[in-house]
């Protein structure tokens, strides 16, 4: 009964979506307030019905109802409750349902909090949002129905892919989807503006908080995914330039560019057309990401060709929205009025620089990800484009971007003084250069690029601090004045500085862990010791342990530093009988900002076991940096000026940090 209810709720959501796709537009044409307001109720109700549908599927998983095909395929009655819940989205059908759940959530949020949007703009936005929703409801109902029943219900399920039985999976996809799908709002706003043929600074002020919120989720989602890969895949790597990862990086790059260009539009009423285009492109990249991950095209171009229903459907959605969006853009963009003038050396100029490099970097990732697919589809030739390609193309562009980053916030709007800014950054630059020299001397010239990376990261961090110091007048004004000025600074200024600081922190982590990390791959016997970077690992032996739905083979290591025991590490291998699979559980031990990492290979008959040992200095900075970026974004989002639904300074009560 419950799966049928869930299915029915989704059909109802589709029906509401169809109404919402048309009614508000008709209403906006005829200035019919009632018709336009209808979209508010339908948007809220769509969310309610999709949520009910999602709840129904969750109940099927929690109660292990194996008469439902997807539950049988992806669940097991012995799994812990948390994994029963996460397996709802640990497969294609369920993850698409999560996708539309988040999509309808965003639609409902616009309906609920967009009270002070102009009526026609809101009507158009909700209609466009509903077009996207309907396309995906149809996709789920026609090609990926999660509620399909099996005629003869099996007694036991086939278990969730063991790699996915991890707390990381519990939070990673929902966060990523909140980011991906959040950009749909920016897209809907852009299309609505093109339909209306009117756009102004207020538009940017409405769009920015949504984009910022999506960006925050995407940032954390990508960082979570990277940490999850780091500890589950057992190679100690944190980024593999895998197409699935690139699929989430591309919208992040475009979204970051969009955040920055929306600032120019909001403050200076310039770059309007470009901002609209970026909003369309960012969501298009989210759709492309969904296509890459969900169509099976990555597994095999041939598999895609032999069972094309899903892939072709998503491809059609892709064409419709990207093609439609860009066509509308080409047709209507010229109607938008040109904005304010600015000199190339100015804050606007710096933000254009940012956009240029971010979008170009995004383009190189796009080429690297899609070129092998295109080549195979066209010529049948198979190639793999890996880390070296991306390091050579994305790397230099990002370095240029990082170097320019401290200059931007210090430049004035309209016409900036590059020399003055350079003078103010002199201290940071000098410290950066000294750091390069010291690092180079200390590591003895092993790597030429790494010291520059460290120096650059430090330069960006100090640059962000200098921005704050300049604005608050620290070191040159009395402390009371400084405090007053600091309190008076807009939160978005703090947010900018903190987010810029954060990306430099991540960069520092990446450079250090990649360059000065050490590793040993060795076969050890019980009671044997291995040393790595001043740490001594002694292997105490193997133990068997029983988990809820797996058997674990645990290797115990005692770790000593300078002869003093500092703890034990217990990497393990889990074998899951339901799928006959083993997973590797690496053991991690944090030492300051670095980590020791042990993962297991195969066991031999003589009782020895192959192990991988890693020491990754500063590796935690990679993810701390992402958290700092998130905090910067959140602080900026809480800026009164940008608070969702409060475009103008509101009454005193609105000052409470609601977010």
């Amino acid at each position: 009964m419950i799966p049928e209810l869930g299915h029915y709720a989704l059909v109802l959501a589709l029906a509401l979506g169809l109404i919402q796709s048309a009614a508000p537009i008709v209403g906006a044409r005829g200035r019919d307030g009632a018709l336009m307001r209808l979209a508010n109720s339908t948007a809220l109700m769509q969310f309610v019905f999709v949520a009910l549908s999602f709840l129904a599927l969750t109940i099927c998983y929690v109660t292990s109802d194996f008469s439902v095909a997807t539950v049988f395929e992806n669940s097991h009655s012995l799994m812990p409750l948390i994994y029963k819940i996460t397996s709802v989205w640990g497969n294609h059908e369920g993850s698409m349902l999560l996708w539309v759940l988040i999509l309808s959530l965003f639609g409902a949020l616009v309906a609920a909090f967009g009270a002070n949007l102009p009526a026609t703009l809101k009507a158009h936005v909700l209609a466009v949002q509903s077009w996207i929703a309907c396309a995906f409801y149809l996709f789920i109902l026609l090609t990926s129905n999660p509620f399909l029943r099996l005629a003869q219900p099996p007694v036991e399920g086939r278990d969730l892919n063991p790699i996915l039985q991890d707390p990381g999976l519990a939070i990673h996809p929902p966060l990523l989807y909140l980011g991906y799908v959040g950009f749909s709002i920016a897209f809907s706003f852009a299309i609505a503006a093109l339909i209306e043929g009117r756009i102004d600074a207020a538009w940017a002020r409405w769009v920015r908080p949504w984009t910022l919120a999506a960006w925050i989720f995407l940032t954390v989602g990508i960082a979570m995914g990277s940490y999850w890969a780091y500890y589950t895949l057992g190679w100690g790597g944190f980024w593999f330039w895998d197409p699935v990862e690139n699929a989430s990086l591309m919208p992040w790059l475009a979204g970051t560019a969009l955040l920055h260009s929306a600032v120019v539009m909001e403050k200076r009423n310039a770059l309007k057309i470009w901002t609209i285009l970026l909003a369309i492109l960012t969501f298009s990249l989210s759709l492309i990401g969904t296509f890459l991950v969900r169509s099976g095209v990555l597994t095999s171009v041939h598999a895609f060709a032999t069972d094309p229903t899903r892939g072709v459907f998503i491809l059609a959605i892709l064409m419709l929205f990207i093609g439609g969006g860009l066509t509308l853009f080409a047709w209507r963009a010229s109607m938008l009025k040109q904005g304010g003038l600015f000199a190339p050396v100015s804050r606007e100029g710096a933000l254009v620089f940012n956009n240029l490099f971010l979008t170009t970097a995004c383009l190189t990732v796009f080429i690297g990800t899609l070129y092998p697919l295109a080549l195979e589809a066209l010529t049948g030739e198979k190639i793999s484009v890996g880390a070296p390609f991306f390091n050579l193309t994305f790397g230099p562009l990002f370095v240029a971007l990082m170097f320019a980053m401290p200059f931007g916030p210090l430049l004035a709007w309209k016409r900036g003084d590059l020399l003055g800014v350079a003078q103010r950054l002199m201290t940071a630059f000098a410290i950066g250069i000294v750091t390069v020299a010291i690092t180079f001397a200390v590591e003895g010239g092993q790597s030429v690029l790494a010291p520059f990376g460290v120096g650059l990261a430090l330069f960006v961090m100090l640059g962000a601090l200098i921005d704050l110091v300049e604005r608050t007048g620290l070191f040159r004004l009395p402390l009371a004045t400084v405090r007053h000025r600091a309190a008076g600074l807009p939160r978005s200024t703090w947010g900018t500085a903190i987010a810029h600081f954060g990306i430099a922190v991540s960069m520092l982590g990446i450079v250090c862990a990649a360059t000065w990390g050490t590793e040993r791959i060795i076969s050890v016997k019980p009671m044997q010791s291995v040393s790595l970077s001043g740490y001594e690992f002694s292997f105490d032996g193997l133990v068997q342990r029983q988990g809820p739905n797996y058997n674990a083979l645990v290797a115990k290591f005692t770790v000593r530093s300078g002869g003093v025991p500092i703890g034990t590490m217990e990497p393990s291998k889990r074998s899951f009988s339901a799928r006959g699979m083993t997973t590797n559980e690496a053991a991690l031990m944090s030492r300051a900002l670095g980590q020791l990492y042990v993962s297991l290979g195969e066991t031999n008959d003589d009782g020895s076991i192959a192990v991988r040992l890693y020491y990754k200095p500063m590796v935690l900075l990679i993810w701390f940096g992402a958290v700092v970026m998130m905090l910067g974004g959140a602080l900026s989002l809480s800026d009164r000026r940008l608070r969702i639904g409060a475009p103008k300074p509101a009454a005193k009560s609105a000052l409470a940090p609601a977010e």
Partner: protein
Amino acid sequence: MTRKQRRLVLIGASLGVLAVAAALVLSALRDSIVFFNSPTDVAEKHISPGTRMRIGGLVKAGSVERGDNLLVRFAVTDGKTDIGVRYQGIVPDLFREGQGVVAEGKLEPGGTLAADTVLAKHDERYMPREVVDALKKSGRWQEGEVQGAGGRPR
């Protein structure tokens, strides 16, 4: 500065950055991509030693030999041709005789591949796509064998 001049500066800068990016992409594509071959391709194409490539196929039954320091030697077969692979390190959990495998490395003068990466299938249902294609080419692939999702599951 007039609007026209500003636009020229913008377009010039954009073209400049794009040109740099295009140069980077082209040079990286020339130097850092790796072609995939089946064992039969390697034999037929007369690939010169020192070339970096990927090969895929099945681990030939009875071919796995282990040496000191985690040295592993095995043969990859597509049913027609075999190619020897030498690898030092930890092979994946699902590396077994008769199962699908992809190895990446440099071809040595003797015709063996000195691999630095060995990938096996992710679970019982998944077969690396290169392996499937290699087997299909040599006619050893039976339709109907299940394929699961590949790469990193999400």
